[in-house]
């Protein structure tokens, strides 16, 4: 299948200054790519550049004009001051599809309610967004992205600030949304362990070391590759069908 979106020899950064260069990346229908790396490593910059929000410093970006993108920001970035219900927030996902100046219709509202149901909070449609818990807000933002009927779902740090149970629930939700369809997911996370059991491909981004790697999960989730990314020895263990990633020893590299 042809890719939905592609970067060729890209350099990303701000104000013409490259943070990370030599990036080749393709996202095809059905992909589940996790971009991981340390805090400040350039992951969100890469995601925003991939989506065309930030201009490339160098290289080329290809995306069909008709590509439908659903985006889930870090939930702390959304201002809870606004007097909006969960449904009001979700229906925003229909705004780019409706066209400028055109009214949203009953069908858009139905899609918004459907998206809320799909993420398991259909009963919270009328609740003020500001009164929702962190996990419920995250689901609302995912529902908004789904309301856009996306071909590509881009998610920025979906488990930030969550306790382990909520983190698992959020990741399970993304897995369920991805399962058995053509929806492509690109997710940014600094929590490698959170994505190791869900993504099919991994990308490492660390602008401090000028490190950029991308490949299938099996090839990327190795102690050697991870140690290079984090600059210290990292072990990968599988137990009960789940992968665990953890640092070992001191500051030295993995053997």
């Amino acid at each position: 299948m042809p890719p939905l979106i592609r970067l060729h020899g890209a350099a990303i950064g701000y104000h013409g200054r490259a943070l990370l260069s030599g990036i080749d990346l393709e996202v095809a229908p059905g992909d589940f790519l996790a971009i991981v790396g340390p805090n400040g490593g350039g992951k969100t910059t890469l995601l925003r550049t991939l989506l065309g929000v930030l201009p490339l410093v160098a290289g080329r970006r290809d995306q069909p004009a008709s590509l439908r993108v659903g985006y889930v920001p870090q939930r702390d970035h959304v201002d809870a001051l606004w007097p909006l219900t969960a449904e009001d927030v979700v229906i925003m996902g229909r705004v780019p599809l409706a066209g400028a100046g055109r009214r949203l219709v009953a069908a858009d509202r139905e899609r918004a309610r459907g998206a809320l149901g799909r993420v398991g909070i259909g009963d919270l449609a009328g609740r003020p967004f500001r009164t929702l818990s962190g996990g419920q807000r995250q689901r609302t933002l995912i529902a908004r992205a789904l309301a856009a009927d996306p071909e590509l779902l881009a998610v920025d740090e979906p488990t930030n600030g969550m306790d382990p149970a909520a983190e698992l629930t959020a990741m399970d939700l993304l897995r369920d949304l991805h399962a058995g369809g053509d929806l492509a997911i690109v997710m940014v996370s600094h929590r490698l362990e959170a994505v190791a059991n869900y993504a099919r491909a991994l990308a490492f981004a660390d602008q401090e070391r000028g490190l950029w790697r991308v490949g299938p999960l099996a090839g990327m989730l190795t102690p050697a590759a991870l140690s290079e990314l984090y600059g210290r020895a990292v072990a990968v263990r599988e137990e009960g069908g789940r992968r665990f990633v953890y640092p070992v020893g001191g500051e030295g590299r993995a053997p």
Partner: protein
Amino acid sequence: MSGLAGFWEAREIWREALLASVLSGALLGFLGVWVVLRRTVFVSAALTQISTLGLIGALLLEERLGVAAEHLGVQLAVAIAFSVVGALVLGTMHGARRLPTEAGVGMSYVLAGAFVILGANKLIHVAHDFGSMVFGNAVAVSLSDAMVIAGVTLVCATVHTVFQKELVFVSFDRETAEAMGMRARMWDGLLFFTIGLAIPPAARALGALPVFAFLTIPASAALLLVSRLRPVLAIATVLGVVAAAGGYMLSWIWQIPTGATMVALAGLFVLPGGLLRLVRAS
């Protein structure tokens, strides 16, 4: 009753002023919801100063260089141009690496204020009525001024009716709107264009203090009362109208300063919502 009767009998005098006040109250009350929710309250204060600076510039051009700017319409047009450009710059400005957005807004406010004082100091012919010309007095308003405010209200109402969903999305979550293909800068610009357009004619009619008050108090009162956007917009608009009309009438009857009476009355509207929050919190 005699005060009310006297007020009604004098309606030929206050008709245009009340019309301008009511329209300004409605317009600014509505726009204030956006100003408060966008956390740009001090942008509106800076814009009042910047539009005044434009007016001073027009007066100086006329006095010093003989440029034909004595017509009130020209002065207002220059003030609107300054305000709109200021709104587009300040409203769509995002924090740079070294300075937060607030620093830019604060500097604009104080620098525009300083240049207003310096410019006014150089004016000769209009110095005697400069205060009411620049800051308004909400008492004597011409029909043409009221019509300008009506026209601006119509433009703003049209923009906000047609493009409300885009303005809400971009204002609530700019990052997502951009990622999903919307031209956030353009929508931001449109929103702040309406705010920049509204301030100069309202400031000319009512004065700087009521304009700043109407852009903050009715919206704050409405946000304390209800939790849905459309009711907030409706309540803020109505409160703006009531504060403007009520303040005007009370100031006439009690013979007290008009702008300050409007602001004081608007301040009372925060009490119900504030009390409601206190009761709910306890």
